[in-house]
């Protein structure tokens, strides 16, 4: 087997900040290689160079033994390199076939018209081989996230890509869809394709790859066969320190006075008869598989979605329905699952994002204008306490931050409001180990200050690591409550899968 791809001393700087500091490694043909590292370690920059989105400042690459330097994504595609981004690059208003052929529509007998039949027929077997059982003329809008990803893969295969980069492919997939993706990855490898697999979920990397490359601060800090590197070592190479402690020690214990009380919360088809409460100083974990109704419940609690019956009260006072505003006034805060769409103003400066919810508190003067100086100062303090990695938080837009730092901004926005009850929906998704630790620390700190936290997650380990109690949801119902002493991965899983077990 030969070398498929070789990076030699790749360097890249952005505005004086070093993103890649002499990266060199080789990828064997027909291998699946995991690329791991914290956010900001340089993975994306490196892959963007490989995919023709960015040009390196220095260094060279070779593909199949020949010099390789794509100047745009089209170049890369021509050379058989495909990049499947975390945010899929699909046009939801077009059909599967049109998405695949977007730049190379076949013409009908030399007319400028598209040969739809030829286009659709040519894809049938490809879609079938990916187990995507739709007609090629189906509009992408109607597909689930996992199916959309398969369309991206079909696109890569159709362009005859022999080196395929997957960037965090499983973040929006259900367990079953992930399983299917892995089957397809194995299939691709057996067809002789080389795969670069980027993920924060190290168990996946361990499971699916042949080799692992670790990046830290723009340098390669580890390169070995997957079989000979265990997850703790991957982590220590990523963060540069030994890390037995993935979770901070909880510094306080919950007391008995309830903050949030939910009774009989129901919405037909979504959730049914949900009862629970969150106490002062408590981190209540909510576990459930994707699609179990967790997010929907959180949205009802915060007044975003409506519900048919039941009651929600904060500190004994019932909450009005459909009013996020009064939820905020009562001290509720909501870190949503989708930080890009729902949590951040991407083009706006970091401090303004942090100050957003508290804006009314800074307009107390006669003419109601914003006391920007005081707001920026206090947002700055919050930013510092979150260890935000940014060069100028008053000017830099939220967009320019890495995923983990963006999440910190979302959390900071609510911290500024000093929340009584903080709802966090998948707050650590897609962020690196270091940032995760900091998010957990923030939860602990808030709990120590007597706030309550509702922590929704699909990673059992983190719930066990940080929560005081865990409730399990399945198919819209709350099936079981676990006390700290009963925490157990198998038991939690079994509860979440109750239908499958029964």
């Amino acid at each position, binding site marked *: 087997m030969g070398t498929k791809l070789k990076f030699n001393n790749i360097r890249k700087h952005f505005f004086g900040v070093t993103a890649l500091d002499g990266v060199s490694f080789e990828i064997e043909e027909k291998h699946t290689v995991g690329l791991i590292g914290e956010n900001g370690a340089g993975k994306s920059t490196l892959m963007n160079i490989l995919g023709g*989105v960015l040009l390196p400042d220095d260094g060279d690459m070779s593909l199949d033994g020949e010099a390789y330097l794509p100047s*745009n*994504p*089209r170049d890369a*595609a021509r050379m058989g390199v495909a990049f499947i981004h975390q945010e899929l*690059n*699909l*046009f*939801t*208003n*077009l059909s599967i076939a*049109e998405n695949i052929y*977007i*730049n190379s*529509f076949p013409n009908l007998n030399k007319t*400028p*018209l*598209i040969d*739809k039949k030829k286009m659709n027929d040519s894809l049938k077997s490809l879609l079938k081989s990916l187990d995507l059982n739709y007609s090629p003329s189906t509009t992408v809008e*109607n597909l689930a996230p996992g199916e959309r990803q398969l369309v991206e893969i079909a696109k890569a295969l159709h362009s005859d890509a022999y080196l395929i980069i997957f960037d965090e492919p499983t973040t929006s997939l259900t367990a079953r869809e992930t399983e299917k993706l892995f089957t397809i990855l194995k299939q691709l490898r057996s067809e002789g394709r080389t795969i670069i697999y980027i993920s924060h979920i190290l168990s996946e990397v361990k499971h699916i790859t042949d080799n692992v490359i670790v990046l830290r601060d723009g340098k390669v800090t580890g390169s070995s066969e997957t079989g000979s590197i265990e997850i703790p070592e991957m982590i220590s190479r990523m963060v540069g320190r030994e890390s037995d402690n993935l979770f901070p020690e909880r510094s306080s214990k919950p007391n008995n006075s309830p903050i949030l009380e939910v009774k009989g919360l129901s919405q*037909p*088809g*979504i*959730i*049914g008869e949900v009862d629970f409460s969150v106490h002062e100083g408590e981190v209540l974990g909510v576990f459930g598989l994707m*699609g*179990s*109704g967790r997010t*929907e419940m959180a949205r009802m609690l915060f007044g975003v979605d409506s519900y048919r019956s039941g009651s929600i009260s904060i500190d004994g006072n019932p909450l009005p329905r459909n009013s996020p505003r009064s939820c905020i006034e009562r001290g509720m805060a909501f870190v949503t699952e989708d930080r890009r769409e729902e949590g951040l103003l991407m083009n706006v400066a970091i401090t303004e994002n942090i100050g957003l919810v508290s804006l009314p508190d800074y307009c107390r003067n006669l003419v109601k204008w914003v006391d920007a100086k005081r707001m920026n100062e206090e947002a700055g303090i919050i930013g510092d306490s979150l260890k935000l990695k940014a060069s100028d938080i008053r000017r830099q837009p939220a967009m320019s931050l890495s995923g983990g730092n963006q999440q910190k901004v979302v959390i900071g926005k609510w911290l500024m409001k000093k929340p009584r009850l903080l709802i966090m929906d998948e707050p650590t998704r897609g962020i690196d180990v270091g940032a995760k630790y900091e998010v957990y620390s923030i939860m602990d700190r808030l709990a120590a200050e007597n706030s309550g936290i509702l922590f929704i997650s699909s990673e059992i380990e983190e719930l066990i690591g940080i929560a005081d109690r865990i409730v399990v949801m399945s*198919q*819209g*119902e709350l099936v079981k409550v676990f006390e700290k002493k009963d925490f157990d991965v198998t038991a939690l899983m079994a509860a979440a899968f109750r*239908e499958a077990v029964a």
Partner: protein
Amino acid sequence: MKDRNWQRFILKNTTFILFVLLFLIFGIIAPRFLSFKNLEIILSNSSYIGIIAVGMTFVLLTGGIDLSVGSTMYLSAVSSGTLIAAGWPIAPTIAVSLLIGIAMGYVNALIITRLKIVPFLATLVTMTVGRGIGMFVTKSVQVDFPDSITLMSTVKVFGFIPLQIFIFGLVVLLAMVFLRLTKSGRQLYAVGNDPFAAERAGIRTRPLITSTYVISGFFAALGGFISITQIGRVSAGFGSGDEFDAIAAAVLGGASLMGGVGSVFPGTVLGTVMIQMIQAGLVYTAVDIYLHPIVMSLIIFFAVFLDSVRTDQLKKMERRTIMKIIS
């Protein structure tokens, strides 16, 4: 399950159903409304604004807007009128007026794609400047057209299709084929859906966006010319306000101001004919003429409101149900 399919059918075709309902209501109140002659008049009146609305649909599909079409109509019509008065033959003057439309569109496109000014502002400027130039040239004196032009509106193609309806049909057909069946057409939808993704997918977005404004300008000039054949003169207010009728027609036909959604047929055609039908219907049913604008706007508002409700409802229906449905 069957109920659900019905619901879906109704939701997916709200505008069309409203169209049929209005048609029937007008017909019942005033049977003369249903006469063949009247229907032909409605179509004939739809032609010029419909042609402009087709051009507008192209622009809206990319997420842009073209406010300058009314001024383009005026400028190109004034130019052809002036040339005819100076003794030019008909054919070259038509060519010149269409070229002026193309030029206006190209200027819009340059301002939008090169100077990166948002379409609303860019075309607001060309709207004002365009009309300004026309007024400067004519000193805002009305321009009359000879009979040779106005007689065109009585021409019947193949002996029975009025020329303006024929041209409208042709424009619709070409636009439909272009949008549905050509590479550029499909890529236009892609650009409207996500311009950044389109760039990344290697689509050359700038020429595509440029082409939509050129098409819009060209159709505005063509629509303006059709209008002249029907009224025979151009005053300083010619075409003013038509940009909003064109936008209303496209939006009523389902085009989104955010881009990526919309069609020429049935969409925009339905929207245009519906507006004309309501206008004619109000006349036939003897509604007080001073109430026309109010009734008209209310119906359009209702249609657009219905559309937004239905989009929400459709989304809800497509949303997965989490709890097991007990059967």
